[in-house]
């Protein structure tokens, strides 16, 4: 189930305050399960509403404690914990075969969509540009391999994994959401299990806001399954705990059900919009003096126009000049001011044409707005939060 409303993000605030009617709440919860960025934002907003709650603390009647304690003593707690052995299920996300006839553009978009799903794109840029580039290079090598195939599986005990595996690269990219938290001294370990024996394939990093990975596991052999166990944090050389996942990898999947894309196809350039976000008040205070060491806009324009990367772009006037328009029930509603009141404002944009996200990040990092504020890099006509681009004809 997918939100078609492009403004779904704006529901995060209403959701965090339980201000959505129950049907919209349920829809947004389904959306959250597949949108790590939204889940992260909601987590931060829930920390905020916790402060609103704390500010209204009020002592309950003393007798309530005895009632609660008595009720708890009479209430059985459900027994959690992983079940002994669980066969993972995998579900193929899309139509077989038909993709093979898809246009080259769609192929590239699928790769971009998966890159977004794994958090390789703009989200990670906020953390560390260099690290993101480094890890996304390895990840991109697997994702763009001609024989890459994607599988998802359910983890016994909770959570969903998504795996893209490539036999030619002998590697897979693993990511998971909603894995249950482990005690401090334990961590999740990946295993490749198959004719070549059971081999450890790496400890997973701790989850951040319910999202684990992406990580690359190398050494993939024909006939391997992917397994997951909870082990001491130092890692084990062979699985000592019950398998929480047993995911059948490529070789066992009937050929017709494997989704492939071919990187021999000539890729048309990708279009991205660079959205410049700056703090207008701060800019006015500084009187237009650029950030120390920042490149000049003139040199950026000269380079990008020279490389043929930049299609068009403009600086925008301040948000005080903005007007918002909505049509509801054939009635045009116009108001002054920006769409949303935020600390940073959209100050300009550029639409660029480049080979891939890495180039888009490189282009953005040279723009002076990135030195002063933030540049959001958005693929044009991509899909939101890991939604795979629809297969043509499906």
């Amino acid at each position: 189930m997918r939100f078609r409303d492009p403004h779904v993000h704006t529901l995060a605030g209403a959701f965090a305050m339980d201000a959505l009617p129950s049907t919209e709440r349920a829809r947004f919860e389904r959306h959250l399960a597949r949108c790590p960025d939204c889940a992260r934002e909601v987590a931060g907003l829930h920390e905020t509403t916790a402060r609103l709650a704390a500010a209204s603390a009020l002592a309950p009647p003393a007798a309530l404690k005895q009632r609660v304690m008595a009720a708890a003593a009479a209430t059985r707690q459900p027994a959690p914990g992983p079940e002994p052995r669980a066969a993972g299920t995998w579900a193929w996300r899309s139509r077989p075969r038909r993709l093979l006839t898809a246009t080259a553009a769609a192929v590239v978009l699928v790769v971009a969509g998966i890159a977004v799903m794994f958090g390789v794109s703009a989200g990670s840029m906020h953390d560390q540009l260099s690290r993101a580039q480094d890890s996304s290079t390895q990840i991109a090598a697997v994702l763009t391999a001609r024989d890459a195939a994607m599988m998802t599986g359910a983890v016994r005990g909770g959570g969903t994994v998504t795996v893209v595996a490539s036999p030619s690269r002998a590697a897979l990219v693993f990511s998971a959401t909603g894995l249950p938290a482990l005690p401090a001294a334990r961590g999740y370990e990946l295993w490749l299990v198959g004719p070549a024996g059971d081999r450890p394939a790496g400890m997973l990093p701790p989850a951040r806001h319910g999202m684990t990975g992406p990580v690359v596991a190398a050494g993939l052999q024909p006939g391997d399954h992917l397994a997951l166990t909870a082990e001491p944090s130092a890692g084990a050389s062979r699985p000592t705990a019950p398998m929480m996942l047993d995911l059948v990898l490529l070789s066992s999947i009937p050929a017709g059900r494997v989704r492939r894309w071919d990187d021999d196809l000539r890729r048309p350039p990708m279009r991205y919009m660079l959205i410049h976000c700056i703090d207008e008040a701060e800019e006015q205070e500084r009187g237009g003096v650029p950030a120390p060491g920042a490149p000049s806009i003139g040199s950026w324009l000269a380079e990008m126009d020279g490389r043929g990367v930049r299609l068009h772009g403009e600086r925008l006037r301040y948000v005080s000049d903005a007007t918002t328009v909505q049509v509801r029930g054939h009635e045009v509603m116009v108001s002054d001011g920006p769409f949303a009141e935020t600390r940073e404002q959209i100050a300009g944009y550029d639409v660029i044409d480049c080979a891939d996200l890495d180039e888009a990040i490189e282009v953005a990092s040279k723009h002076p707005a990135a030195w002063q504020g933030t540049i959001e890099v958005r693929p044009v006509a991509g899909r939101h939060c890991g939604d795979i681009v629809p297969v043509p004809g499906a």
Partner: protein
Amino acid sequence: MRPSGGLDPANQAGGGHGRAAPSLGDLIGRVARGDAAAFDVLYDQVAETVFGVVRRVVRDPAQSEEVTQEVLLEVWRQAHKFDHERGSAAAWVTTLAHRRAVDRVRSAQRESERERRTATADVPYDEVAEAVESSLEHERVRRCLGSLTELQRESVTLAYYGGYTYGQVASLLGVPPGTVKTRMRDALIRLRDCLGVAE
């Protein structure tokens, strides 16, 4: 017990400090293993915050006690589901509490009464002014609410403390629902930054 009697999520992040007061996250972990003594301590740490927020939304004292009891029993039963990777223990508990309270006031038998209240718009906007005590946390939140635009502040107050849906808030304030949705998000983001909430 802290003097303020409230939950301070900012102080709940880490593990045990080896002092008399264990962190709420540790307590929930022990409660998940059936530790009734830990639940007793947990009650003292969270009861005032839970009751406070429930009382704000539900209003009726007797029903507020019922809902508070339901929330604490839910903590007892669901403690194993708490995941510190997803947020603080304080946020987990207050989110349970607020949702329970909202569900209670939106249940079918209350619907007609609330519609009447919505229609007459007879709701005090500045609910924070009613706060029972002026703890340090209360002062911080009040100051940050003061930094919001009027529309943002009213949206947050009516939704969070009043328990209204964004549609009801929109009709109370006479603005389009879409505007209320965006202002709610803007407001919480601004509050988050103002309160220095760690993401």
